[in-house]
């Protein structure tokens, strides 16, 4: 095969794969406690040969009906772990993250955005995506959203069967299909508006065809092992305002953070762009709805910022291109990018192979280019080892994000709570917060759940409070975590509030 230079998407894939895997490998594993939880869920599903239908992990809601909207991704993460250990999990996460960037770039190039501008926009998008680079199921949504956008923004409406197939895959991988529905809805509504404005038969035909995709996608979301329970559960989760207010990733962005600041600057850039460069061809209504809708999503919850990078950013670029072309350019920059629009995808595939081989090698005792363990400064690695040595089963109050790690590192141990907030609900989250912040009644919560051990970060106020309670003793302490155990017979709430 004759040598061909890598295509721009392949180059973007290669670049961001290496940056993600090597530069951000630790973040993929240690961003929060959810990666470990998903691995444990995936292993449980693989071991049972069935999805989880009743909670086997907590002592606060044991055996209660369990619905998952990300079981497929959990299985894939667990398989990556079986093949290449935690390095494999990083490799899978980085591959998905880089693929999303490459697909977004390919979309812009195919729609005629000037190559250098498209490449820069994809890089900015990657920075936004990096705000949520954690090896978790939502990475599959990144890729599928990019695929859907490319499919929707064509002169012909997508075939309902293709949409059905895409959403069946999506619904069985991750609950982010709701954002796919939102994008689909934007297109259906936008094309209806455009047809109404122009009144042309072709526009009406296109709008009707796009509209058919919506029921196809809706039906697809029911084709999971949980049937109607999955979308209902997801709707209940997204409507639990108390939970959304307390979960960090659902909080609005703080614009002094680096990632959020990029989002802010992008919003300002888009404002300037649209103010100065009126798109002479007119802005299609689907584009307008998607740009505004996903931007609002980014303002409402920081976890939606990456979705802006996958939708609003490339769509805006289709129309801001003329303005960017008026800017001065470094010598030959645009020409060299334009020459690279063809090219081969093979280097990208080779890079993926290299990353995966590195993961496997690290897992089998070879050189460790990718992280192979959870960070002992972030997770209670030593304390959980001490926990495993404790006789009997403890009813453990654990720090929220550590719940997933405990499940993964000590599979016999049940937890108080873990980052699966959709299952535990806001009531238990508020109970957790009451203990965590020692609000009045925190001792009563511990007594109600008969808690006899606690795993909390070193230096947290709760350590000092529990040490001051009767019967609680420190069993293990290191620079990351403290394990406290209540002596048999001592009241769970120490000197709790006596009944009035």
């Amino acid at each position: 095969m004759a040598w061909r230079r890598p295509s721009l998407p392949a180059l973007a894939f290669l670049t961001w794969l290496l940056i993600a895997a090597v530069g951000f490998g630790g973040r993929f594993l240690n961003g929060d406690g959810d990666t470990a939880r998903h691995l444990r869920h995936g292993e449980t599903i693989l071991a049972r040969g069935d999805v989880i239908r009743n909670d086997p992990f907590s002592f606060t809601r044991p055996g209660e009906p369990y619905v998952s909207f990300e079981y497929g991704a959990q299985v894939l993460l667990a398989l990556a772990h079986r093949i290449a250990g935690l390095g494999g999990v990083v490799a899978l996460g980085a591959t998905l993250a880089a693929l999303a960037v490459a697909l977004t770039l390919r979309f812009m190039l195919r729609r005629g955005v000037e190559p250098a501008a498209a490449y820069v926009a994809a890089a900015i998008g990657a920075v936004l995506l990096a705000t949520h680079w954690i090896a978790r199921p939502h990475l599959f949504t990144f890729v599928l959203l990019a695929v859907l956008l490319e499919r929707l923004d064509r002169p012909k409406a997508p075939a309902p069967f293709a949409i059905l197939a895409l959403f069946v895959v999506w619904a069985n991988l991750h609950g982010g299909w709701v954002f796919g529905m939102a994008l689909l809805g934007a297109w259906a509504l936008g094309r209806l508006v455009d047809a109404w404005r122009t009144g042309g038969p072709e526009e009406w035909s296109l709008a009707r065809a796009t509209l058919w995709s919506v029921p196809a996608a809706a039906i697809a979301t029911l084709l999971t092992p949980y049937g109607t329970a999955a979308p209902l559960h997801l709707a209940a989760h997204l409507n639990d305002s108390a939970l959304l207010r307390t979960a960090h990733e659902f909080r609005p962005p703080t614009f002094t953070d680096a990632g959020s600041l990029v989002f802010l600057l992008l919003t300002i850039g888009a404002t300037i762009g649209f103010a100065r460069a009126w798109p002479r061809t007119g802005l299609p209504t689907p584009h307008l709805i998607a740009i505004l809708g996903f931007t609002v999503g980014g303002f409402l919850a920081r976890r939606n910022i990456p979705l802006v990078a996958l939708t609003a950013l490339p769509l805006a670029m289709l129309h801001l291109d003329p303005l960017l072309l008026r800017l001065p350019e470094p010598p030959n920059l645009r020409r060299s990018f334009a020459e690279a629009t063809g090219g081969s995808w093979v280097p990208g595939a080779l890079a993926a192979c290299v990353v995966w081989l590195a993961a496997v090698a690290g897992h089998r005792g070879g050189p460790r280019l990718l992280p192979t363990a959870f960070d002992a400064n972030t997770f209670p690695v030593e304390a959980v080892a001490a926990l495993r040595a404790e006789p009997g089963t403890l009813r453990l109050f654990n720090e929220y994000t550590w719940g997933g790690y405990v499940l993964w590192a000590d599979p016999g141990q049940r937890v108080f709570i873990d980052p699966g907030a959709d299952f535990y609900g806001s009531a238990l989250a508020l109970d957790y917060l009451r203990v965590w912040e020692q609000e009045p009644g925190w001792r009563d919560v511990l007594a109600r759940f008969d808690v006899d051990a606690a795993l909390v970060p070193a230096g947290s106020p709760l350590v000092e409070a529990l040490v001051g309670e009767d019967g609680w003793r420190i069993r293990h302490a290191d620079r990351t975590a403290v394990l406290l155990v209540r002596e048999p017979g001592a009241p769970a709430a120490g000197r709790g509030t006596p009944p009035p």
Partner: protein
Amino acid sequence: MPAIVFLFWLLVTPLLLANRMLNADGDLPRHLRHGETILATGDVIRLEPFTYTRPGIEFVGMEVGSQLLYTWVHRVAGLAGVELAASAIIAAAFALLAAFLIRRGTDPLLGFLTAMAAAMVGMLHWVARPHVVSYVFIVLLLAMLERERPPKWWQYALLFLIWTNLHGGWVFGGLLCGIYMVGWFLEARLPHAPPYAMARARNALLGGLVAAAACFVNPYGAKLPAHIVYHFKERFLLDNTNEFRSPDFHMIGPKFFLAALLVLLFAFAITRERPRLPRLLLIVAGVYFALISQRNITVFALTALPVAALSFDAAWRRLPDPRGLRAGFARASAAASTWPWVGVGTLLALVLALRHGRVGGVEVVPDRFDPQIFPVALVEQARAERLEGRIFHEFTWGGYLLYAWPEQKIFIDGGTDVLGPDLMRTHMEITRLQPGWREHLAGWQVDWALLAPRTPLASQLAHEPGWRLDRCDRTAALFHHDGATAASDSLAPQRLGVCADTARTDTARAGR
């Protein structure tokens, strides 16, 4: 039409936003106490006299004039008067905005809707505090920078001299001049630039220079601008002060801002009009500052929205005019008068203020701080009993303590620009029970702790040896330190629980 805006907000603000205007934070009582101190001593405050944690450190006040203004009103008309005065200032700012838009030739209906929308977006930070004075000056300066005949230097000087001595918001005035200067300068370099662009850039530069010079003419001299610069560089203070944080779009107030932002983006995307660069820079600067810090949302509403309306006026006029609504509004606006109505409204507000917000025995405008937010009852009792000793308290109650218990020195108040980040950090460590909190309380020789009953520290002190729950109600719990060796108060948790449950019931009832 400006009269309608003025009367509407003069009526709505004290009636519907009364609780927030007075009780949003503990800063109003702090400003009143500062004003009283200045009136009593006949000089501005130069050394910190209010805390036992930072006694005698250098004090620089950024809002002396408005503190005096509020204090005079408070002496004559009580808290209801203060609230009405703040409402009148706010209403005046948005009425001026409407007048500015009409004078610049905007369609009257668009001008009216913009002024009302700006008020809705900006009401997030309407609190009876000195910053509302800056709202008026921002609109005045914007009108100066936007008018066809450039302002004279002495007009800038007059504006900035008054502004500097009323409130620290003059910094934004300087920034506004800078934005117009850069905007006109860039505009002048574009093809088809208006011939006057460079002259406008020079005039805006003149405004900025005058602002820079005027900010030294105040009782503190050069210390005032230096102090403001220090304040904005203290990242810890900004990160931990609610109003300086990014807006929380889960709350209703910032959602108005988000809606305005969307409308702006939408309008830019679908209209052919291209705003001139000074206006565009002002809009994007407004967006930036509002997203960084929610207290700037009002500034965005007062600046970005009106210049956007000026830019989109032509597109607005191209829209259909169903039932001649726009034309009818324009005719009515041209025929209507402003000043008589403003005069009548102001007079009625003045009468109501002099009656301390009461009409025929009915309290229309509150004349007291909310006892469910501030520890009114416990402070009254403590003051009557002449309790002595150092007190630790909730952060937002510091200003209230200064106001209601002047004999008592406090731990901290909202004046963190003077008290500094270290003290604020210590206060947070204590209230969050972080390691070392006991040592902090012991180090400051704290005798009393005045806390909300449903807080971790109150819960902990109820169990803590050496601390006794002296009294509590649904708003506050007062603990006394009996000495490190004293046993814990065994009934304290139960008594505190009763007070906390009452507070919770009240909260739930209010929520319903």
